[in-house]
């Protein structure tokens, strides 16, 4: 199909000027075309220049960057040469932008409706009443709840996934010829991502607008792009249709990117403990624990987050905690660390009960449980050199000083695979992956028994993140430390955890050895999670949306209930009258695998069989076509 050309990028060059006046090329001569109604993906790691290129379509550069050559033609007009007044006309009417974090992109002080329609009205494309009408149509198309009234709300009154879709409405309201989507699903849970992707794809198709889709996630690209441009260091490595690139990548870098896409979570991926550290004693045991915020009344927190949690972390094991945002993963880590005292239940370290509040814990107990925070950027003091950051726990817990301390710092840097001279550097001078290593090194310096890692790879590119995981596994094998690895990314957890705990609305719905949890039968929620992880193949999104469990549970909000199964409102197999009224029983399978569900194991197995049969049928259909 030959479509009309909308965008022509010819030898685009963009550079940064640093404080000394040196010119550093960021985008080094990039060329590609976009046709009407086509989605072109710019894919690469951070620093590849993908966002910078996409912003050029709006005649915009981030502060400190300058266009230094080439052309960016939209409808034959060069964006690089547009006058300030003209750029304002183009932005929002001809080309529209969708940013990564909708939460930061919506103005907190203005209603959603005004922000969605603002651009279209300002540019004179629609009158206010026409724009309001169009906004409601778009809300319907994007399957937002309460489309007639959501306009009157403020951004903080809707969920993250809804806000992300509202941003799409904001971009589309002015009927742009070209949309720029900058990592629009990266910050979302898999279940929300799939729903947002579906909405984007539908609306792009209906509006027949062209789009630039910027991302580092090949599996996502495979679902939405027609054409893919692979970028590295500001240069095009390879470009071609989605089919060509996904099915037959020729460039080495593309192949590396593909390799970094984690396989679908499935049995057989989890690691096994090194023999010399195998001790089946729990390092941490949590029994009947309930915790929450807002003070405790009669042993119940005012705002309960976690309920009746029973978990053991074996010595030298990696326990993955997974669940959607808001399910209580981080709260669980905070309770273990003593940052949030539990309302009920006990926490034991090496069979000794711990005080709930870390202020009452002994120094050696504090030393044995260490926290690794998600954002290395904010967790590392920017005014301290790495040597001091790692040296502090050495001094605090082990009383090391002077040369001894320095020697130990070097040793620990070696453990996290960083050179010794990093000790004299500041966090600012390090890359994201290096900072995360320092973040872990700091915890490691305490010589802990358990390390609580809260989403430590979530902010990293896939290749960098994969390296951090490798390091984690190596550390475990070398030192025998246990890891509690919190993540919303099931694939990452499945790739190296010994045990998995699936949390939903503050409760454990399933737990056990990774291989067992990832082998059917599943808890219905685990299945939803597993099937929401995008696969690196074309057409996966459409296939998945047809499946029964996806169509039922996906768009609904999590409800935190005090009784009954919290997953009931999203569960495709719920038993009305039972599930929402009684707490589900814990069903024991082999080797410590537990599923908390009203359905018996046999019933769950039957469901599994039917799903497999339906899937097999689909595959046969595909084969016929």
């Amino acid at each position, binding site marked *: 199909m030959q479509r009309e050309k909308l965008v022509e990028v010819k030898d685009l060059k963009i550079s940064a000027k640093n404080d000394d006046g040196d010119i550093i090329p960021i985008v080094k001569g990039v060329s590609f075309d976009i046709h009407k109604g086509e989605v072109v993906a710019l894919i690469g790691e951070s620093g590849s220049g993908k966002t910078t290129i996409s*912003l050029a379509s*709006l005649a*915009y550069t981030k502060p400190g960057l300058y266009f230094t050559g080439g052309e960016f033609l939209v409808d034959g007009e060069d964006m690089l040469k547009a006058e300030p007044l003209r*750029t*304002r*006309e*183009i*932005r*929002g*009417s001809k080309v*529209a*932008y969708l*940013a990564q*974090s909708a939460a*930061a*992109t*919506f*103005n*907190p*002080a*203005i209603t959603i409706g005004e922000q969605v329609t*603002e*651009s279209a009205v*300002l*540019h004179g494309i629609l009158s206010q009443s026409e724009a309001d009408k169009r906004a409601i149509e778009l809300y319907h198309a994007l399957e937002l709840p309460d489309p007639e009234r959501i306009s009157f*709300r*403020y951004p*903080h*009154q809707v969920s993250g996934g809804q806000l992300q879709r509202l941003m799409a409405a*904001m971009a589309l309201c002015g009927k742009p010829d070209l949309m720029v989507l900058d990592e629009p699903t990266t910050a979302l849970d898999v279940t929300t991502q799939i729903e947002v992707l579906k909405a984007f794809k539908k609306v792009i198709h209906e509006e027949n607008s062209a789009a630039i889709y910027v991302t580092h996630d090949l599996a996502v690209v495979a679902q939405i792009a027609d054409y893919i441009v692979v970028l590295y260091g500001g240069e095009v490595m390879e470009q071609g249709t989605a089919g060509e690139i996904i099915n037959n990548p020729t460039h080495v870098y593309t192949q590396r990117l593909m390799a970094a896409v984690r396989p679908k979570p499935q049995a057989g991926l989890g690691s096994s403990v090194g023999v010399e550290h195998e001790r089946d004693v729990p390092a941490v045991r949590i029994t009947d624990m309930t915790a929450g915020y807002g003070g405790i009344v009669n042993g119940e927190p005012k705002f309960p987050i976690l309920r009746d949690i029973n978990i053991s972390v074996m010595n030298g094991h990696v326990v993955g905690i997974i669940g959607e945002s808001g399910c209580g993963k981080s709260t669980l880590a905070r309770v273990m660390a003593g940052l949030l005292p539990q309302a009920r239940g006990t926490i034991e370290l090496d069979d000794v009960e711990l005080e709930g509040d870390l202020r009452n814990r002994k120094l050696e107990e504090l030393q044995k449980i260490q926290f690794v925070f998600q954002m290395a950027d904010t967790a590392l003091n920017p005014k301290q050199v790495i040597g001091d950051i790692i040296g502090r726990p050495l001094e605090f817990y082990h009383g090391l000083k002077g040369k001894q301390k320095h020697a130990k710092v070097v040793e620990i840097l070696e453990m996290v695979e960083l050179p010794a001279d990093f000790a004299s550097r500041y966090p600012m001078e390090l890359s994201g992956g290096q900072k995360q290593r320092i973040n872990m090194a700091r915890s490691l310096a305490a010589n802990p028994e358990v390390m609580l890692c809260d989403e430590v790879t979530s902010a990293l590119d896939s290749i960098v993140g994969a390296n951090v995981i490798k390091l984690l596994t190596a550390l475990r094998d070398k030192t025998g430390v246990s890891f509690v690895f919190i993540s919303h990314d099931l694939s990452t957890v499945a790739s190296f955890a010994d045990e998995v705990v699936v949390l939903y609305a503050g409760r454990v719905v399933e737990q056990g050895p990774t291989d067992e949890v990832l082998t059917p039968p599943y808890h219905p929620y685990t299945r939803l999670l597993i099937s929401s992880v995008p696969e690196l193949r074309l057409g996966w999104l459409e296939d998945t949306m047809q499946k029964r469990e996806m169509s039922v549970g996906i768009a609904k909000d999590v409800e935190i209930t005090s009784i009954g199964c919290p997953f009931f409102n999203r569960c495709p197999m719920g038993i009305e009258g039972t599930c929402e009224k009684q707490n589900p029983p814990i069903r024991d399978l082999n080797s410590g695998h537990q599923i908390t569900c009203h359905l018996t194991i046999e019933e769950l197995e039957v469901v599994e069989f039917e799903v497999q049969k339906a899937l097999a049928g689909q595959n046969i259909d595909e084969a016929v076509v």
Partner: protein
Amino acid sequence: MMKRMVLRRIAIGFATLIVVSIIVFVMTSVLPGDVAQIILGQSATPETLAALRKELGMDQPGYVRYFQWLGNMATGDLGISKAGGATIESLISGRLGNTMVMSGLVAAISIPISIALGLWAAMHPGTLLDRIVTFGTLSLISVPEFFIATILVLILAVELHWLPSTAYLTGDETFLEFMQAMAMPLITLVIVVSAQMIRMTRAGILNVMSSSYIEMAILKGVPRRRIILRHAFFNAIGPIVNVIALNLAYLVSGVVVVETIFSYPGLAKLMIDGVQTRDLPLVQACAMIFCGTYVALILLADVASIMSNPRLRNPK
């Protein structure tokens, strides 16, 4: 949520006032000098001094006098001036009116000018005019107000003879005379308070301007003017309101120098006179009025910033 926060602020305001009243009472009690001595003069005998002290209630223990004083204060009885015998109300009422007129006029002129200039500077950062505004306001903040006042007097009164050099009011001026008398203290105060408000408005807006939602507004093609007025201003209201409140409080209590230079019969000058004559009830009453104004204005600013926060105004 919001109601609770506002009520809490009001409670804190009251608590502050109580603490302040204790401080005022204790501080004025330890001021050197003895009212009885001042009234009766150096030649008074110890017996007459003791008798007068008793009459004034000064032989009672401190806490009794404090609660009596606080109770009277709360019921509007400010007491009797110990130097002269007039009621404090009669001394204060006219002066308070003058101070209020002055502060009101200064506020009415300076707030709109400051916000407009601050916004305008924020709209054109880095331009020549922005630099003139930032540099000018910085210079004005660092210059003491008596200097500005003196320069004004030198130019407008002494050299040009446009305006009278004092602002003493008798109460039966014509409107034109009134405005002429007020002009110079007004100009001085407007300059002094505006400088800070302009800087804070500009800084508050520019701070918000670096956020993601402003970049988004730019990428939506929103004109800079609208970005500032609609997108940035409402998110910057908190700090702006606070600096306005501080400056208004200053206008009520801190304008001693200006009132003195222009012989303006305001409250601050009355308090200075009170300190000079050891007139404790007068000093206490003035101090409490100043503190009350401060607390009330800061409270208003707090409530305004709470109200301007959409998260608190529209809970989930």
